[in-house]
């Protein structure tokens, strides 16, 4: 079988510069989980439907199962292990308090999606904003109600804190 050569790709992960030798079309998800041993990002479907593999690339939420590593040269990648800040803390606390995590497999992706949602909204979102904003992250356990409550609660705390 003809093989493409491995390439060196350099990018920042959670603030740290990294360089990997990888097949250019290797999924960013696999590079993070296997090569860099950052296993907080999960694989649920491999087709960009469930959002369990969500990471931030240059601050934007993406499904890392659909990103070939060659395309992240020079990018800033943030995973659940590396995301930080007031909004994150508020989201994580609210998730625990409100019961928004059950089995937990969707949770890292959901937390990232929640943080970007809150940061994208300048004012307090209403439940429908949250309902639609998180539609790209599937959860089979919760029916989403506890997740919405957690995000609304985290939002109140963040908006309050930032105001």
């Amino acid at each position, binding site marked *: *079988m*003809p*093989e*493409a*050569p491995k390439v060196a790709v350099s990018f920042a992960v959670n603030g740290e510069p990294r360089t990997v030798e990888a*097949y*250019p*079309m*290797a*999924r960013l998800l*696999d590079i993070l989980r296997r090569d860099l041993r950052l296993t907080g990002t999960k694989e649920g479907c*491999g*087709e*960009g*439907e469930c*959002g369990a593999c*969500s990471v931030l690339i240059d601050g*934007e*939420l*993406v*499904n890392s*199962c*659909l*990103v*070939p590593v*060659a*395309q992240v*040269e020079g990018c800033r990648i943030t995973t659940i292990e590396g995301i930080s800040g007031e909004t994150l803390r508020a989201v994580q606390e609210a998730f625990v308090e409100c019961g928004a995590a059950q089995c937990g497999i969707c949770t890292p992706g959901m937390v990232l*999606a929640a943080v*970007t949602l809150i940061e994208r909204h300048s004012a307090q979102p209403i439940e429908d904003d949250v309902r*639609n*904003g998180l*539609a*790209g*992250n599937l959860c089979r356990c919760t029916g989403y109600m506890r997740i919405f409550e957690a995000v609304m609660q985290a939002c109140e705390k963040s908006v309050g804190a930032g105001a």
Partner: protein
Amino acid sequence: MRSYLPAYDMRVPLELDEALETMAREPGEWKPFAGGTDLMVLLEQGKLADKKFLSVARLKGLRGFALTDDHVTLGAMITYRQVQTTAILQQEFPLLCRAAYETGGIATQNRGTLGGNIANASPAADSPPALLVYDAELELVSASRTRWVPYAGFHLGYKRMDMRPEEVIRNIRLPRTKKNWRQYYRKVGTRRAQAISKVCFAGAALVEHGEIGDVRIALGSVAPTVLRCRKTEALLRGKLTAEMIRAAGDELAREIQPIDDFRSTARYRMRVAQKLLEEFLLGLIAPPAGEPA
């Protein structure tokens, strides 16, 4: 991962010219790769036949933007997210913004591009019906030439396009002619969000003094390509009557060719396409908000 990953190659050219030269040197060998939201799914399934890719997602040459009195020109690598947040598109091309909003979820919208969507040529894509209604034009560029083609003639058949192996879509140009037209977009998917469309309807009509002066109707998911329904459009001029609506529905049924697949049935698609047409047309009879009847 169902594919033998080591067999796949990707290069990341720094400039558009570099990409075009590579493609010209080995025509058909290197395929442009944009946001990856379609191609990577094929890779995961073991169904990605092409093996060599040039990443074009971040090429400056494909991320242009120009605004004149007559046109809006979008670089092909504009993402769905960017479409939704571009002011002139919100104001004058709401159907395109709506289509972008309904495509996948936020993570998909951050990566997926208009050019990639067009070149992927899925008959179920959400943006193409809007582009057809807006009389979009595509700029195709290669190492040796540039040409503009009306988007309406671009899709020749299922996954066959008027595009040469060494060409790339550089720009999508939208004439600013539909500002005052009544506009309608409805996607019927398998669920409310993150859904592949079962029927997708985009329509626009110029209505003056209660009469239709001009109309555009385009549908997705009801033919091997996105479809502009010219025969149906031709029946819709002048004062809209119940008879005209009925005739248009019958003509639509002849123009579209929906199929059964594991998402839906031909009969459902046919029936719903007709009902969406009816909903669009009935909406034209009612005055837009704020106007007297």
